[in-house]
């Protein structure tokens, strides 16, 4: 289980998280929604330790996220970044197998390559993509490679940062289905941040509405349409009028 308790984070005078509290039960898929600049990515980065929160606590399976062996902690995570964040200088298979070629999980290059090709196949890419450079791939293919990299070491927890942003609706649907399948198949705990309501309905077990640095509403995805929460209602129906100011 991932538990954020009263987490605060400011960048200079810009207070991004204002006491964010959230629980993500093990083996479930939590989707965090909210407008741009409300702190969704910051929350994920705080859990991973990429950003240090100013106050509050973050527990992963009851242990503080910032204590213990950092490599062992990070080895439990996989992350799909918004833009893919593939390493330009490495061919696709080395991107996917990056974790398997270094550190505690290091394997022989041949074995790492085989695993990479298997993961690429899992996300619907042919083996001949393996030797290409990321710049030679389309946005959708890069996203899939990023997904393959996120699952390559079979992590317990996977984060997806805007997995369908910039993709056409069909490719977005493919990525949504892949995420759902992979999470169910691996039994992983997933946290996704997105604006895409189609993604929310396809991926989520639970959702959390983040606005102004705090969780306004959280609950099962099935209750989302009848939550009675004005922030969530406005967001999921995309209305300009409501408590969320359209001009921010």
């Amino acid at each position, binding site marked *: 289980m991932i538990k954020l308790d009263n987490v605060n984070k400011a960048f200079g005078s810009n207070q991004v998280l204002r006491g964010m509290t959230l629980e993500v039960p093990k083996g479930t898929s939590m989707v965090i929604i909210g407008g741009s600049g409300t702190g969704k990515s910051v929350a994920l980065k705080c859990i991973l330790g990429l950003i240090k929160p100013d106050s509050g606590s973050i527990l992963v399976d009851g242990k503080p996220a910032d204590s213990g062996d950092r490599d062992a902690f*990070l080895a439990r*995570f996989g992350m799909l970044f918004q833009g893919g964040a593939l390493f330009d200088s490495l061919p696709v298979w080395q991107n996917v197998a990056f974790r398997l070629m270094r550190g505690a999980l290091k394997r022989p290059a041949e074995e790492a390559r085989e695993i990479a090709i298997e993961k690429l196949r899992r996300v619907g890419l042919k083996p001949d993509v393996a030797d290409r450079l990321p710049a030679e791939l389309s946005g959708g293919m890069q996203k899939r490679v990023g997904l393959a990299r996120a699952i390559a070491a079979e992590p317990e927890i996977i984060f997806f940062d805007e997995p369908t942003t910039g993709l056409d609706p069909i490719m977005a649907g493919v990525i949504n289905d892949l995420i759902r399948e992979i999470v169910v198949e691996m039994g992983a705990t997933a946290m996704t941040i997105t604006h895409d309501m189609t993604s929310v309905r396809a991926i989520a077990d639970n959702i959390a509405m983040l606005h102004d640095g705090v969780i306004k509403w959280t609950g099962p995805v099935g209750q989302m349409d009848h939550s009675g929460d004005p922030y969530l209602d406005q967001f999921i129906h995309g209305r300009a009028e409501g408590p969320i100011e359209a001009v921010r």
Partner: protein
Amino acid sequence: MNPIALLARVGRLALDWLSAIGRVALFALSTLTHMLRPPFYGRETLTALLHIGWLSLPVVGLTAIFTGGALALQIYAGGARFNAEAVVPQIVAIGMVRELGPVLVGLMIAARVTSSIAAEIATMKVTEQIDALVTLSTNPMQYLVAPRVLAAFVTVPLLVGIGDIIGIAGGYAVAVHNLDFNAAAYLKNTVDFLEPLDIISSLVKGAAFGTLAALMGCYYGMQSGRGAQGVGRATKGSVEAAAVLILAANFLLTGAFFSV
């Protein structure tokens, strides 16, 4: 302006400078510790050796040969004013080895390598590749910074040595073919006049300048702001800082080696 406000502004400026120096010093210290402790990334180091050393050879060679040639012409023309044309081989040798070789190679490395390192790392930062490295249990200081600084520390002295030789050869070619110097006498004068300390100082300067150049590229890349503007600023700042530090270090090292 109110004198107190002026004092406050000067104070703030001084504090900003001091904190910047502190940040760079801490970064350098962190780089050193990451260079000395495992894991060592052999492939990344070899790639950096290739990019910084081997691929810089053409630009270093061209810079050195033209500088050596121009130096020979200048010394000949200048020396003619007081009948000292014969000192061309000695001054070309000492000028190239002690000063122009290391400084010009250092500045060319700042232009070519520092900018490239800063732009590459800054782009990686902007596109979240640095964050991705961390989530993949890889320390960016160890994976990106240490190999580049180590490679520059090792290869730039070699480039300086090669630049010195090519520069002297450029002076030799001009002196022998344009200024009617005797080839054998020119070489003998060059070899006889150079002392081991000249060569040692040249190589030490090369190591220092290479380290500074790579360090500035990595530092500005890692500190880059967002977007294309952030990458541009990081690249520009890195080259400016590397060039100024190289010239300042040259002054200090020259003083340390040759002050009387």
